């Protein structure tokens, strides 16, 4: 493992996340920096999908009122 890559994500201390981010760095080496682009993309996608599921929850709750 390249020490430069190991040090690239110091804020992600959890072993699995740390390891994951190191791999993200390897794949997106050109991006470098503290926050690899892929980690950001994963977070945005996860938040977006969670928001969508929440929307579905309230949409059908609302539909209950409308269909009454």
């Amino acid at each position, binding site marked *: 493992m390249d020490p430069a890559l190991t040090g690239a994500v110091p804020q992600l201390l959890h072993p699995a996340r740390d390891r994951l981010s190191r*791999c993200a760095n390897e794949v997106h080496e050109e991006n470098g920096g503290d926050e690899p682009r892929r980690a950001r993309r994963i977070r945005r996608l996860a938040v977006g999908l969670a928001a*969508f*599921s929440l929307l579905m929850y309230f949409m059908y709750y609302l539909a209950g009122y409308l269909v009454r």
Partner: protein
Amino acid sequence: MSSEALAHDHAAEHAPPRGLMRWITTTNHKDIGTMYLVLSLIMFFVGGAMAMVIRAQLFRPDMQLVTPLFFNQMATMHGLIMIFGAVMPAFVGLANWMIPMMIGAPDMALPRLNNWSFWILPFAFTLLLITLFLPGGGPQGGWTMYVPFNLQLGYGFPFMIFAIHLMGISSVMGAINIIATILNMRAPGMTLMKMPLFVWAWLITAYLLIAVMPVLAGGVTMQLLDRYFGTHFFSVAGGGSPILWEHVFWFFGHPEVYIMILPAFGIISEIIPTFSRKPIFGYRSMVYALASIAFLSFIVWGHHMFVVGMPVAADLFFMFSTMLIAVPTGIKIFNWVATMWKGSLTFETPMLFAVAFIVLFTIGGFSGVMLALVPADFQYNNSYFVVAHFHYVLVTGAVFAIMAAVYYWLPKWTGHMYNEFWGKTHFWLSAIAANVLYFPMHFLGLAGMPRRIPDYPLQFANLNMVVSIGGFVFGLSQLIFVAVIFSCVRAGKKAEARAWEGARGLEWTLPSPAPYHSFSTPPEIA
């Protein structure tokens, strides 16, 4: 620091902790996959024990082994436990174990979320199961939780609603993780159209989960509000409608059926090419068929409720849209058979289960098309014909696919080959017993035996006895499955990295057993 020392530190840092804490705090996809699979196996036996109670009660007329009230609880809990506790966690477990290895990723995209997704489940099932010991007993209105039955439940009602919410949250978190992993963690060069079909099937399934689990959660919240907060969503007296529940439930429920079968399609699409020693026939059409089935699942829910008296136009729409599903499903079955055609076939246990899946799932599919016909459904509705149909789809379909997957990937998980003789014995006993168990149910249903009854007239006696014997043999034969798994974990012939000669795919490039961390350097896909 030298690179050797650094590598050593790195390995030490990622060695799993020992004891209970390893399993509680783990973020490793293989550990979490194992926990899902173990939970699923336990729930399979809990739900199976309930099925044994049902079949013992129905062994002959006037049996009176349990009270009708307890019988209803067993029938309801059997459905809930098998669907949410056995089949779904098994597929999530397989996804956890295999998806990162199949796409060349080091782990799931969100490992801590993954840990949460799993650890919610034991609490959810504890909540659900303790309803059996509360005043008023467990849920009795069927797994569909129809109102007003479900609203009349005793102290168990809020426990059940909370349990359903927890299961839903777990499923949605798991689905988010799977989508994030597949879309972001693939090895360089693995385009979407190069992904294994199991991964494709799970990507589509995960979208289905995110779209429909909140619908169920919304529905059960409405039940909760009706019961405790004076709303009248489902109460006729207050201007609501019980039929609304059926619409909301089945808008969730039908895609849910496909959530339980699409990953099975993915598994079969991995196993058939391996033991046919040929690539899958019609890869692209398989992907499009999966997507079509998922899309159609959203517009067919009304076929579960033809008899409630919908407008004729709605009946016709739901009938034709349901029959349309036979097209992509037919494409898949054709492609599996075409893959086997002129292949160099061998019939190890995973292949036996896969071939049985194709034949028996097709039987379930045919009875599904029969049930899609509005006038015919008026006759079959609420009869044992329906019970036969969905057990062919879910047991000889989904459960057989899970068993095929376990036998197929067990060498990769444990590093040992399982005992082929006992694997095949398990298969033949299961396949024969499942047909003795489920096939006569078609005739019972056609003769007019309703489902969910604790007793029946004499005319149904003979076939019910046959069904019960099939049920007991099927249940007992699953003990062989457990024995084979345990013996394989402990010992057995050493498995090679490519355990099956015809197996292709990234997971088979890793040693057996797969190392605790796989693909720390992403492989290149040509």
